[in-house]
């Protein structure tokens, strides 16, 4: 099957909205090289379960494909057209299993030393698309918040080292009611600028009390799903002939109901399942979960507001302890988790700055229940320190 063979009836297994979207654009899709088309279909097939920002991105991209001429299309996709594929890839059911195709394409590109050429083609295409159909800027400047260090009395190393050059460091923050102040502030933003999946609260432990206007994901609340997933993975691994690729394919097919998330918001439930099935380490370490959830929320939902609170992860026991008896009890590692979260906060900021409107975005990281914080934004002087006494609400008011 080649792109030129596309027909509307081939998409009969797509969910309703995805089917409607793709069949409106078949002539434009027929001209794309096979090295890139399944990547686009991978996004389209999940259209019904995507966040609004992702839907807009798919719409924007398809509309652009429809708008450009066949000659322009040939220029835009020249790099992809040069990628040489094999018949095994061409024979895959890439219409109904585009993700599987992309996974196998990735391995094939590595093996045939075509990965660099593919990257060049992708960078070129992204630049053209951004120029022709620029992404929409947010209605208000984005605000990111990271709360780190839960359970740590005194850090062993200076905090926020990677972020200090970008903002103002405060060391006399009044910590009282800090988390409540932050959650209230993000709820106020969510109420004032309502947007579906626009304002998020992610917690690496159990979610604290918060306004339901916020879209919320927490590691603690997902414990039954995590347990079910680990059990399922173990069962699959024990089956003869099971390998990493096959396991990934099985995990990719899991639906919320398979892990006990059968009711409620289907879009959010699917997002949470993907955090657990696609994220490496998210099933085991809460700090990894919080960082990855923040990354994926920013990449996919492009929120106006994102508060990520890191919590202590389980301690990685050294080999000698694992070899000794009575090692089943889970212990926590607050100090190691602080190091993880400090880096995670940096990554959250980096990922926020990759979104449209970055020059107006703000970011706050706070050492929970302590007086240290760092604020980044257009109004905050870079690489400075402040000994001003203030609570977090005041700092937020200076930032936004």
């Amino acid at each position: 099957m080649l792109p030129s063979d596309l027909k509307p009836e081939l998409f009969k297994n797509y969910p309703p909205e995805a089917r409607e979207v793709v069949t409106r654009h078949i002539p434009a899709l027929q001209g794309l090289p096979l090295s890139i088309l399944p990547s686009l279909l991978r996004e389209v097939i999940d259209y019904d379960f995507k966040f609004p920002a992702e839907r807009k991105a798919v719409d924007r991209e398809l509309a652009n494909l429809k708008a450009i001429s066949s000659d322009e299309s040939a220029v835009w996709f020249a790099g992809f057209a040069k990628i040489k594929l094999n018949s095994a890839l061409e024979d895959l059911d890439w219409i109904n299993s585009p993700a599987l195709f992309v996974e196998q394409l990735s391995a094939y590109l590595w093996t045939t030393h075509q990965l660099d050429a593919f990257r060049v083609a992708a960078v070129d295409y992204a630049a053209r698309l951004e120029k022709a159909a620029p992404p929409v800027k947010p209605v208000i400047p984005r605000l990111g918040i990271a709360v780190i260090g839960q359970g740590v009395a005194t850090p062993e190393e200076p905090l926020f080292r990677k972020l200090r050059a970008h903002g103002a460091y405060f060391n006399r923050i009044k910590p009282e009611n800090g988390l409540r102040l932050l959650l209230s502030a993000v709820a106020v933003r969510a109420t004032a600028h309502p947007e579906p999946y626009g304002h998020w609260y992610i917690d690496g432990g159990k979610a604290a009390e918060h306004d339901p206007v916020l879209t919320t994901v927490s590691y603690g609340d997902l414990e039954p799903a995590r347990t079910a997933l680990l059990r399922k993975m173990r069962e699959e691994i024990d089956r003869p002939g099971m390998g990493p690729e096959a396991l990934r394919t099985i995990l990719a097919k899991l639906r919320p109901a398979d892990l006990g998330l059968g009711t409620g918001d289907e879009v959010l439930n699917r997002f949470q399942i993907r955090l657990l099935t696609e994220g490496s380490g998210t099933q085991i370490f809460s700090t990894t979960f919080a960082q990855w959830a923040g990354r994926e929320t920013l990449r996919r939902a492009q929120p106006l507001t994102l508060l990520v609170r890191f919590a202590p992860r389980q301690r990685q026991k050294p080999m000698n302890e694992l070899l000794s008896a009575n090692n089943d009890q889970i212990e926590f590692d607050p100090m190691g988790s602080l190091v993880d979260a400090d880096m995670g906060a940096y990554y959250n900021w980096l990922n926020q700055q990759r979104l449209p409107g970055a020059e107006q975005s703000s970011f706050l990281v706070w050492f929970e229940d302590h007086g240290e914080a760092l604020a980044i934004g257009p109004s905050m002087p870079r690489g400075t320190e402040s000994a001003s006494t203030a609570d977090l609400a005041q700092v937020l008011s200076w930032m936004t």
Partner: protein
Amino acid sequence: MAYGNFLPAKMTPREAAWQLACNRRDFLRAATGAVLGSALMGPFARAVTLPKRRKAVVITFGGGARDQETFAPEGQENIPHLMRELIPQSTFFTQVVNRGILGHYVATASLATGVYETINNFASLPPEHPTAFEYFRKDLKRPSSDAWVVAPSNGFNRIGESSHRSYGSGLGARVLLPKHLLTAATSGGRDYQHLLRDNYETPFYAPELGGSEVELNQLEEILKLSVDEFKAHARTLSSPDELSVYIARQLMRQVAPSLLWITMHDIDIAHAGAYSLYIDGIRRTDRLCAEIWKAIESEPEYAGNTTMFILPDFGRDSDDDSGGNGFQHHRTGDTLSRTTWMMAMGAGVREGVVFDRAVDSTDLVPTLGSMLGFSASLAQGKPIHELL
């Protein structure tokens, strides 16, 4: 953009790799006083003490660490032993480029063959091209006891011997998988699956064994180590790499192979996404490299006639590439994940010298060949003349 986000490159990959190399050189110069190779201020090569046979020990600094956590000023606190003890004694190459597949098994196989292998990273398959061990044993007519691999995970059990028809069967290295031995030694007891997690890239999967790895019943015969001693010592160690180094030292003491390859892997815990554990892995690997060098210097069979190489199989993703997730993985194929370093020290190697020119990962095997006296005739790489 629906294909993962790619940042427009500010430099070509070649320019970026060169910049990375220059940064490394500057970091080293500032921290250790090492000099640029062309200046040759310290042309003091360690003499090879004859008539003992020349030996080589290769350590892969696995599973890859970035400059910002190692050689950059903010990372040097994590590698005190490399910085203060080993680099001043070594010839250091700041730009070792891996142009192959960035999976640990296939990349290590490429290092061992001098050819960019394309085998499935997660399958129990031998390299397709002859390994250094096969060239070494066939050309120099050495017994199997003279070439050994100590590797962390079951997935490396085929690394010692290729499927090449002119080499292969019976000509490879013997392979020790310490974690596999530990599994066997503790069988019938508790469930050690979590401890013996085989591969951080696919943490829930362990390939089936098959190959010429040493079995538990050979422990006493080869290493002069009873199962009880082995288990007791394992209980004092904190990580699989510590276990590998313990076994390697035992091997050096009891068998003294001329070609010994030790693959470290603790750093690859980074795949679990916990930055603190990744840093712990770097610090541990740094310490273990120094321990191996001390063992070389203290073992009569090795002291004075051994060249040690330390190099990562590849790096990790940059924070700047939105297609990855920073330190966690090595999936983007960006310049940072492809451009690593190598240090060589000991017999015949000049001390305190830095070279910036790009060398290739596949150059290692031909270099070993020139040093030890075998011809890596099917390798893609070239001997590194600065070491010869």
